[in-house]
């Protein structure tokens, strides 16, 4: 029998399996998927790369001092950030801008970031633009990461600063430093507790789950887009539970006992 207290989790999981299967099947068969609206922050990356070329300053990309997590519930943010990295590398390769990538502290992210960048340069037919010196690893601590990133802005300049993914308090210093040195800040995190910092300091914001949508939109991968559609089904289910719960509570039903099932 199902463990007591996990009935609702099980229902949600079954629903999500059905939704993921349905949309993934559509994606793999090439059928039409729900459209992701144009996200201003994604458009701004293109604008920012052009701006960097005009100013003769490099583009910077960072996904957080702890942005390489592949083993927590935040993994989806890492994957979305990698997709945006791929998009940024391709734009820089296409338009001819220098890109400096600040690799997260998680050592398992080093080959991943390097591989994504290498693939993206190859896809654009410009593998010679890949410079190992411009892939900076600053160690496993937000202390060293933030200071190194801010120092790089100061020494080498910043035209566009893309900061997406898992960010903690380590976002504040680089965002502020980029602003001081004249960079265009584009970024965001799905971590609610740090959304305020991005809202304050970015020129173009990816608010909350917009990060996932942006990652899917720039991925050129229908399977990623199908994931966003599946999440919507989950959200509608949660919303339905919320409304039903509110109504039942209003008529005196003990929702605590129902959700303890």
């Amino acid at each position, binding site marked *: *029998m*199902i*463990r007591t207290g*996990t009935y609702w989790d099980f229902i*949600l999981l079954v629903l*999500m399996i059905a939704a*993921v299967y349905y949309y*993934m099947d559509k994606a793999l068969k090439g059928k039409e998927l729900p459209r992701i609206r144009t996200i201003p922050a994604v458009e701004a990356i293109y604008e920012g790369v052009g701006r960097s070329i005009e100013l003769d300053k490099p583009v910077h990309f960072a996904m957080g001092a702890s942005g390489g997590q*592949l*083993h927590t*519930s*935040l*993994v*989806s*943010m890492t*994957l979305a950030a*990698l*997709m945006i990295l791929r998009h940024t590398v391709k734009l820089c390769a296409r338009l001819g801008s220098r890109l400096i990538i600040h690799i997260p502290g*998680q*050592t*398992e992210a*080093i080959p991943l970031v390097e*591989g994504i960048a*290498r693939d993206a340069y190859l896809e654009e037919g410009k593998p010679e633009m890949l410079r190992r*010196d411009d892939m900076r*690893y600053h160690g*496993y601590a*937000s*202390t060293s990461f*933030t200071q190194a990133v801010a120092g790089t802005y100061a020494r080498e300049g910043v035209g566009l600063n893309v900061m997406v993914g898992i960010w903690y308090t380590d976002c*504040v*210093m680089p*965002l*502020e430093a980029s*602003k*001081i040195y004249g960079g265009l*800040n584009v970024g965001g995190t*799905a*971590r*609610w*507790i740090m*959304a*305020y*910092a991005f*809202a*304050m*300091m970015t*020129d173009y*914001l990816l*608010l*909350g*789950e917009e990060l*996932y949508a942006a990652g899917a939109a720039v991925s050129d991968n229908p*399977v990623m887009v199908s*994931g966003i559609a*599946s*999440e919507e089904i*989950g*959200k509608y289910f*949660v919303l339905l539970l919320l409304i039903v719960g509110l109504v039942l509570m209003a008529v005196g039903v003990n929702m605590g006992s129902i959700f303890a099932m």
Partner: protein
Amino acid sequence: MSEFVRRELPLVLIFICGIAVLVPFFFPHPFLNAVKAELGNWAVIIRNVTIFLGLIYMSFSQWRSLQRDKSMGGYIYFVAPYLALVLFVGTALAFPGYINSAQYQWLYQNVYRAQVSMYVSLPLFYCYSAAYRAFTVRSIEAFALMLGGMLYTLRQIPLFTYLFPVLLPIGEWIMLVPNVGGGRGATIAVGLAAIVVGLRTLAGREVTTIEVR
């Protein structure tokens, strides 16, 4: 490396391990629980091995940086002896890795923790500086943040709550209603995204992390 070993085998292993961890969560059974616990132990072992590999990679990366740019030496020659000291105290002095030893704790409390405390307090000043310099009301979200932040900050200052008592309930309302509601919405979105990534991984369709060369 053959295509099967590079691509198919990891997907098969991920699927088996994922199912073995997921099923006992809903259907408790002594055997399934034992398998889950064993996999958990192996996850810890693999994680520690990757940390060791990371240490090697990081050292190599720093060495290459030093070869490229000799001016880096000032930093590396300072940090490397400290790394060696921490490794010695943490692993050799009280073998095997007794981090509660007085020597290790002294290093942790007086060097590492002091540095982190300094760092964590710094963003506060950066935040205020950024609020003054970088904050531009370009969107409805930014305007809402400015208004909410301003009202809540004023609510925290006794002088303003004395002069304008209405700030107290407004500040509480901001914290307990929009903040909690927004936070829960974001948490649900993160959770659902994690479920979708997990299911995509189990189905062998999460290619972001395994298709890179």
